[in-house]
């Protein structure tokens, strides 16, 4: 039996096909695959017989385009992967918290969703001071706690404590799908409704064997790219605001809404609620609506091009963006970062390109990268991606295939494990659904891109000035609720 079992994105395998390795072989397999260029798309526990816990790893190798799944069974403790495989560190903290299994030798094992019961790493020294921020922040943003160890302005270390948004979604998904499931998915991260709902629907369709029509796949793709456009526009505006460049901040604030309103033109809701459903999409667009969408897209793109280009042409903006919060490509790979953050370090990671599903199997979007790994790179990669999203939407809406938009759902197959990846605007979204003997969810795992990237932010502000934290933070713009679940 090979160490990993191959699975395609948006497909399911029999639970008994997933290899059950010894703990030592499981460790070796994950470490070897990650060394060979794979990333950990998911690593989590599931209940096994008695009090035992089955650890499941989903490994994604973008260079070879292969996804593999493997597992082992542990009881109270096992030798941690993290010392030999850094991208596992966040996952292993979650496993310890959710299952009471101790990854022995984990360098910083502490709860990740119990922020009120946590201690922080401290730097000692007469002139060291500690800055504590949050959970209630100065702006209208989600709660999280940031603990800085500083010497004057200089940041030695930042520790991020999350979990304030923990509302028990994964637990509530067990036994589903129910009438509430799709609403949980749309609100895993409310600014990524299309991304997460698509990941969920792909998983469910893999389990039911339903085949989505070409028209529905195109509409899902268009909605996903509109979501990317809206959020990237908002981020570029917010970055401009954080360096005090108000023209772009003001224009992008309005233009983000224009993209959201295009989504509302399709489905009535600015956050695409109710659009992506198992079996396809819930609403159709006629020729007049397509025409209006394209017209609005051109207007918004013209204005956003002008607004964003002001950033690159303004020296005072560039001075603040360049060399701020840099991450090296090696560190990015070592931490297992994803999305625009990884691509801004020159790492070609993009699910749409590596593991395409739906319309992205036929319409390829080039991967946008930049090499400098700083705030500028994270801003510029967003702009490159926006241009490609606009080109994609233009092309897709002009050649919208005819046909129905939804197929009626069949029941889910029993004892299957489905893996579903989607490139949301923040990066790789991974859902892993496992059904029981009755075709209900025995377990449902959600990995938001923020789960991979929060530690990247902590590393990016190391040896920076604390006053640059808001700018660095905005350049990542990670989700608290998607992380906390």
């Amino acid at each position: 039996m090979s160490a990993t079992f191959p699975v395609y994105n948006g497909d399911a395998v029999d639970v008994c096909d997933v290899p059950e390795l010894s703990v030592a072989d499981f460790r070796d397999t994950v470490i070897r695959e990650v060394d060979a260029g794979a990333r950990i798309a998911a690593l989590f526990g599931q209940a096994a017989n008695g009090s035992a816990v089955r650890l499941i790893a989903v490994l994604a190798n973008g260079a070879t385009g292969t996804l593999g799944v493997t597992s082992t069974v542990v009881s109270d403790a096992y030798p941690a992967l993290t010392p030999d495989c850094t991208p596992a560190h966040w996952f292993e903290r979650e496993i310890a918290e959710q299952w009471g299994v101790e990854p022995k030798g984990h360098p910083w094992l502490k709860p990740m969703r119990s922020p009120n019961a946590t201690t922080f790493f401290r730097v000692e020294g007469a002139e060291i001071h500690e800055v504590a921020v949050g959970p209630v922040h100065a702006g209208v943003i989600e709660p999280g706690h940031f603990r800085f160890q500083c010497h004057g302005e200089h940041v030695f270390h930042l520790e991020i404590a999350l979990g304030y948004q923990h509302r028990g979604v994964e637990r509530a998904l067990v036994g589903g799908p129910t009438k509430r499931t799709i609403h949980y998915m749309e609100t895993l991260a409310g600014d990524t409704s299309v991304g997460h709902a698509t990941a969920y629907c792909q998983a469910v369709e893999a389990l039911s064997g339903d085949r989505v029509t070409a028209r529905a796949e195109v509409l899902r793709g268009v909605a996903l790219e509109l979501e990317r456009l809206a959020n990237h526009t908002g981020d570029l505006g917010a970055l401009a605001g954080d360096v005090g460049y108000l023209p772009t901040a003001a224009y992008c604030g309005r233009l983000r809404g224009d993209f959201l309103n295009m989504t509302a033109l399709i489905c009535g809701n600015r956050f695409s609620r109710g659009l992506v459903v198992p079996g396809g999409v819930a609403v159709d667009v006629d020729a007049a609506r397509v025409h209006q969408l394209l017209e609005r897209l051109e207007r918004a793109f013209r204005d956003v091009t002008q607004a964003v280009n002001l950033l690159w042409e303004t020296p005072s903006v560039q001075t603040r963006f360049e060399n701020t919060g840099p991450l090296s490509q090696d560190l990015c790979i070592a931490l297992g970062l994803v999305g625009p953050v990884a691509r801004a370090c020159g790492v070609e990671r993009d699910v749409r390109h590596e593991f395409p599903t739906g319309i992205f199997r036929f319409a390829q979007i080039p991967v946008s990268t930049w090499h400098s790994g700083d705030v500028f790179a994270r801003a510029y990669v967003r702009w490159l991606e926006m241009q490609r999203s606009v080109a994609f939407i233009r092309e897709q809406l002009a050649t919208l295939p005819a046909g129905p938009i939804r197929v009626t759902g069949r029941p889910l197959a029993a004892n299957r494990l489905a893996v579903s990846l989607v490139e949301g605007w923040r990066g790789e979204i991974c859902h892993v659904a496992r059904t029981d003997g009755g075709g209900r969810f025995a377990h449902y795992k959600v990995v938001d891109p923020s789960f991979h990237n929060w530690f990247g932010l902590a590393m990016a502000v190391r040896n920076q000035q604390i006053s640059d934290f808001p700018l660095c933070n905005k350049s990542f713009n990670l989700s608290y609720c998607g992380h906390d679940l």
Partner: protein
Amino acid sequence: MLKVVLARLQQGHRTVAFPGADPVLPDRFRGLPVLDPSKCATGCQACAEACPTDAITTHQRGLQLDLGRCLFCGECTAVCPEGAVQFTQDYRLATQAREDLVLDGQALRLAQALDRETRRLFGRSLKLRQVSAGGCNACEADVNVLNTVVFDLGRFGIQFVAAPRHADGVLITGPVTENMRLALQKTYDAVPAPKLVIAVGACAISGGPYVDHLEVHNGAASVVPVDLYIPGCPPHPLTILDGLLRLLGRLR
């Protein structure tokens, strides 16, 4: 510099005429639902069974819909062959009392202006601290939008401030997770009295999709007294703005 000036000219003036003129909403927008219990077939519970948050009940006093729990998803209208539940384009949804959000075929009792003394204090200058306490960040996003040039919240004298001690009230989103309960309580306590509390979105009113989860407290009112409820999932920015202005007596 010339490009900045040219951009300014091209981008134009974008602030909506609201509240002067009626806003234009997308034709598929789901605003205030209206109920017509006379259309209900005897014993039919299709809408109640389809509702993901059990906002609709049919058994006790006929057809009732709790706007505070409603996600405005439209599942009820999709399953009702008679059209007994229909979503309108009406974005005005805010109320002062929790029970006013329960619809049973009567007109929605929208929020009234605060009393004269409170309006004298806050009517022309209202500073709010926002607390995000669970939820999905969509309500926060559409609260933030009020600060853009499109809605230009500042022209009404309303502003989000960084510290609770500078605030006249708290605007709460999210179902209030157990992990945020203490932070919300402390923030509320830090706001000088008299103070207002505004609950925005289904989560902050009832727990929303997370209602009755062990990890949440089913809304802001479980921790602090609420003065204004703004339903939606998330509420449209205009719904939020309408609620705030109504409370301040700026709308009739």
